[in-house]
């Protein structure tokens, strides 16, 4: 028998070898088909879980940052408010006595001509200044330069109001009164302006810096803590989430917040 014949014999008989797989073979095939699907779905679950974890940690981080920022803003705001308040309170206080003093000087130099009448306008002026300063204080608190502008305005308004009584009641001593009034007014303004500027510039900046430092220290300590916990996790040691500021209460409260936010969004 030639080798080719052997090949032929086997090929003819065995190439289309009839074979019937066992009855449960299809079921087994389906079972074999399932694992990759399962793997895929499991992979999706893992991916979803990790993504949600990322989102949650991201939200937590940002909310934390926000609260920190709010804290700084609040603390920055409060000194500003306090300074503005102090300015508010100080301004009239400083202006008042000075004005009174100037008026007294005026009176003294004007040889006590109807002091009552002169005093009244000064009160009016001080009240006018007060009201004006008060109303314009928020602007002053925000911007520093407008201060001088506002100070000039009361000066302008103040001078005519004081002019009128002196003109009316002490005609011969107009010049003196004018000179006297002008001088104290300018000094007033200068002193008032200086006080305002110094109060503003010193306090908030120092406070801001100290708070920035505090923030930095807080953040660095938090980062160090996170790094430490991550190292623990890597080494298989216990991870203390509480030390990172992660508590069940906090998480729950944040959950509620998020839910509320979501509800708001949905309702919108």
């Amino acid at each position, binding site marked *: *028998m030639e*080798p080719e014949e*052997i*090949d032929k*014999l*086997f*090929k003819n*008989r*065995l*190439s*289309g*070898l*009839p*074979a*019937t*797989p*066992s009855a449960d*073979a*299809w079921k*087994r*095939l389906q079972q*074999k*088909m399932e694992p*990759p699907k399962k793997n895929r779905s499991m992979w999706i679950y893992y991916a979803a879980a990790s993504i949600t974890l990322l989102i949650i940690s991201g939200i937590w981080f940002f909310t934390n940052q926000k609260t920190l920022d709010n804290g700084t803003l609040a603390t920055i705001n409060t000194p500003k408010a306090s300074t503005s308040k102090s300015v508010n309170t100080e301004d009239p206080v400083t202006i008042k006595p000075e004005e009174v003093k100037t008026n007294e000087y005026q009176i003294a130099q004007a040889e006590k001509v109807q002091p009552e009448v002169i005093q009244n306008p000064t009160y009016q002026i001080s009240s006018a200044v007060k009201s004006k300063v008060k109303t314009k204080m928020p602007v002053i608190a925000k911007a520093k330069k407008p201060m001088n502008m506002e100070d000039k305005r009361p000066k302008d308004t103040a001078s005519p109001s004081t002019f009128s009584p002196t003109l009316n009641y002490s005609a011969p001593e107009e010049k003196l009164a004018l000179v006297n009034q002008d001088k104290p007014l300018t000094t007033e303004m200068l002193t008032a302006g200086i006080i305002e500027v110094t109060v503003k510039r010193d306090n908030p900046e120092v406070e801001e810096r100290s708070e920035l430092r505090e923030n930095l220290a807080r953040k660095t300590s938090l980062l160090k803590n996170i790094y430490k916990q991550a190292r623990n996790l890597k080494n298989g040691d216990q991870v203390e989430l509480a030390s990172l500021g992660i508590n069940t209460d906090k998480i729950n409260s944040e959950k509620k917040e998020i839910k509320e936010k979501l509800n708001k969004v949905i309702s919108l």
Partner: protein
Amino acid sequence: MNEPELIAGLTKGEGKTQKFVYEKYAGIMLGICLRYLKNQMDAEEVMLNGMVKIFNNVNQFKNEGSFEGWMKRIVINEALAHLRKKEPLHLAIETDHIQLATSEATAESELAVEDLLQMLHELPAGYRTVFNLYAIEGYSHKEIADMLDINEGTSKSQLSKARALLQKRLVRTEISNN
């Protein structure tokens, strides 16, 4: 269902098409596996694994040659992988001196398919594999050398040794039949 339809259905992962393909080709693929592997259960397992691979990798079929040929190739590769794991091929096996039988084996028709398969199974795994690939599947020695990671010379020698052994067995069965 024609071939393109089958491929389209399989790429979509249609259970219906998979069932259809299985019913049409499972027998053929199992037959192939039975030629390579002695154990019926192993053969079926390999066939099923091959089908899973076919279903999962239809997108890799590049319309080069027939789809059936591609499927067969996958199943054969699966069988070879199984052989490497379970039945080391022993391709460098040295056989006893083979004496070619001189008698004419004329009673081909009398030989049952089961007998021939039995003869194949009695061959060492390496001979069997090369004989299957060359004589029945129709691969060239170069292709076989690539598939089994051997050189062409080894493939040729394995084939001739397989043939010799089979001829010996054929003669023996003939004698016993007679």
